[in-house]
């Protein structure tokens, strides 16, 4: 059985032209497993740590480095998708308050206009039902609509206020 190649932290750091602290950090992160002997198993350390070291900083020529760089890019794309999804979620749930107030105001104003059109549209039929002249029917409906609008109060102001406090 062949014996595993080992190296001290200092030797391994020198092999990869990094500081000893870098190797100790990789050991602390669990990427490099340090047995009780205190010597690093070179094969394990190369497979786990060395192949992905600095892969995002340089264009990768080797197969292992290329795979490592690709993995980092895939992770980046996944993070980006997640962030975009989160952003879309917020965008779908909220609307601009000022635009909402303006929209509510526009709707109320239009509704009042539609109410005021009722006498013009319904006077003839109304007159026929009540057997009164169309002019009287128009006046009656106009008066009725006026009373309704007064009762409803300032809808536009209310719409803007509720939009501001919602």
């Amino acid at each position, binding site marked *: 059985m062949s014996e595993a190649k080992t190296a001290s932290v200092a030797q391994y750091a020198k092999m990869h032209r990094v500081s000893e602290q870098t190797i100790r950090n990789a050991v602390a992160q669990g990427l490099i497993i340090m047995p009780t002997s205190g010597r690093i198993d070179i094969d394990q350390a190369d497979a786990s740590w060395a192949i992905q070291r600095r892969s*995002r900083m340089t264009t990768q020529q080797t197969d292992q480095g290329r795979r490592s760089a690709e993995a980092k890019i895939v992770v980046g794309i996944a993070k980006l998708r997640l962030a975009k999804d989160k*952003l879309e979620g*917020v*965008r779908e749930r*909220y609307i*601009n308050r000022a635009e909402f107030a303006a929209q509510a105001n526009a*709707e109320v104003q239009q509704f009042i206009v*539609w109410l005021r059109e009722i006498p013009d549209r319904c006077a003839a039929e109304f007159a026929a039902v009540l057997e009164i002249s169309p002019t009287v029917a128009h006046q009656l409906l106009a008066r*009725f609509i006026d009373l309704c609008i007064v009762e409803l109060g300032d809808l536009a102001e209310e719409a803007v206020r509720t939009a501001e406090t*919602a």
Partner: protein
Amino acid sequence: MMAIDPSPETLMKINTELNVVRAQHNDLTLKIRHRELVEIHKAEAVTFARARRVRDQLLSAPARHAAILAAELGLPAVTLVHALDHVIHASLREISRRPRPTQESFSGTD
């Protein structure tokens, strides 16, 4: 699976885009905190509540006003109530079918 170019530029581009998206998200969060944005379901709730109040008030208006108007014109009150009821129902039905006035985009979170 799409082809990935494992160059440093690719990762940098992705990270840049990620930062842009995160900045946009933070901007929205800030707007929410400053009450510049309102939740759609809340906006709909207040709009529907107001619409219902207006509808109910209009539907009950003939019963409240017909007697006075009938007395002024010498008309039978019951007939006037029915006629006004018909006018209000028909008008509300017609208004509900009309397109809403456009304050163009209703989603101003961009």
